[in-house]
């Protein structure tokens, strides 16, 4: 479904993503981990089109999207969330979902009222319907994370790139978010690439893990095997794995 080959991105002298290649099958849920500055977010930004790669190719649904613009990729079904919730703070919760509905492929035919109805549906999945008229600026971080997910889902994506869904949440909230992600994955038949720092939860939730270190992909296997790889342990020295 998604095929990344030899992707490289440099920022000045720093190689943020170095010759990364992997494939994602439909319906997979993949964890992407790595120490700080490993290039995880850059990789997501490359796939979503935020940056253009210096070299390498990205194929999605059999089509080369390396040169495609960000909004075209979004319309094709690549949705992402942001590491620091990036919502429009002077709009209400439901408005923040509405524009994703309008921006989706079928959204070009919807009127505002129809988009409102649909957005309400997506908010309801995350139990946020009662907060629909609250300004985003007034929402706590947990609800912002949920809203990010609702917004991404409203794009009706085929693949969802989650850039840290749990940063800033307490363990109970993180648990709930992880359950919700698994629920929407089944309900909407999603493929998910999930960047996370909270390793405990991600190890339990995903079937396959990619590990990045200094821009390189150093491991690509099941969680059980990955934690035993010496390269991975070395990359995480000082950090607790599992």
């Amino acid at each position, binding site marked *: 479904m998604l095929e990344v080959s030899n992707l490289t991105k440099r920022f000045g002298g720093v190689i943020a993503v170095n010759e990364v290649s992997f494939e994602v099958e439909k319906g997979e849920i993949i964890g992407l981990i790595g120490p700080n500055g490993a290039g995880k977010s850059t990789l997501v930004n490359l796939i979503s089109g935020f940056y253009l790669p210096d070299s390498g190719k990205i194929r999605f649904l059999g089509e080369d999207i390396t040169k495609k613009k960000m*909004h075209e990729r979004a319309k094709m079904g690549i949705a992402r969330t942001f590491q620091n919730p990036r919502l429009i703070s002077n709009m*209400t919760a439901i408005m923040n979902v509405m*524009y*994703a509905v309008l921006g989706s492929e079928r959204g070009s035919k919807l009127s505002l009222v129809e*988009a409102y*109805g*649909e957005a309400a*549906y997506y908010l309801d999945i995350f139990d946020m319907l009662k907060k629909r*008229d609250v300004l985003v600026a007034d929402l706590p971080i947990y609800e912002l994370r949920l809203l990010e997910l609702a917004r991404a889902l409203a794009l009706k994506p085929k693949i969802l790139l989650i850039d840290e869904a749990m940063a800033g949440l307490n363990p109970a909230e993180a648990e709930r978010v992880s359950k919700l992600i698994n629920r929407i994955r089944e309900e909407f038949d999603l493929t998910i690439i999930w960047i996370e720092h909270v390793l405990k939860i991600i190890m339990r939730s995903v079937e396959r893990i990619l590990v990045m270190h200094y821009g390189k992909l150093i491991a690509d296997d099941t969680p059980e095997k990955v934690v035993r790889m010496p390269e991975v342990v070395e990359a995480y020295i000082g950090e607790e794995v599992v």
Partner: protein
Amino acid sequence: MSILKLEPRRGRMIIHAFGRKYDWIIEPRYWRNPIIGVITLLALPLLMYFFATGVFGIRPVALLSALIFANILAMIGTPLVLQIIGTGRVSFGPHFFVAVGGYTAALLSKNYGFSPALTLPASFFMGALIGLGLSPITIISRGIYFVLITLLLPFILWELTYWRSDVFGAETGIPGVPLLIFTGDVVLDIMIYYYVSIAMVLILLFFTDRVMRSRYGFMMGVINEDEEVALSYGIDVAKIKVITFTLTSGAIAVAGWFLAHYQGSFTGPVWLQPSFLILILLTTTLGGKGAVYGVIASAYFIATLREVTRTQFGEMSVVVLFIILLILLYILPEGFWGLYRKRRYREYVPSIRIRRA
């Protein structure tokens, strides 16, 4: 969509979607106040003429021409608000497009004998064409750089008019532009001009309002707030910006067309002055951030104030006018619309700012 059913009720809309029921309250002020506003605007000149004989020593005819000036400010301000929201950038060069429209109308009618009916679309297209040519800057340039480019554009045109003063007439302008209305009766003329200009304002207002409440207006709001978010959620930012900039530039040029045919001449350097820019900018900012109706209110306020200061303070009038406007900027950070508008969550209030980056 078949899963969706809309059920309008008194004051609210019930939406059945995906087996659930949602209600959406439509506030009556959304549709009642515009009607009151339109009636006020239409009745104003008649009231002025018959009842207000000499308030602050202003003759009714002078007051009417002040109100026409208010309409001109509103004609520029309304599309400008749309442009600011739709491109996410604050333009400091709306008067450039006014001058473009004015010169197009004046040159075409003087040199080629075009009638006002023909110069109207010509001005619009000229403005739109130049807007289209300049529209890449709304994508390339951010924040302060956009402000600077738009601030310098009028100066370029200004220099151009002096360089080719044989064509543009520099500060003497282009005389002999056919008048839009000429009946021979000064009062009747000015009354008709008022109604023509208010009709133009209302048409612009209607369009702007429709756009703002449509899906495009909503997407423009998203672009105004965060372009990167808009892009990552499938909104074609570049397309919307180019279309917005092009069409609103054309609309602003129409104000120049009106000026040329109202005054019977067009003198660019008068309108390319920074003091005119400031009047336009204050019309939009005092109107309230991104509020289209507020623009009308502040245009009328500023134009009336300008006339009052002109009669009361003579040569010091500009100083007094700008000091009053500056004070208003301090005490009304939300503008006139902010006085009227309560904090209503369902309504999106655009945040208008110049990004530093």
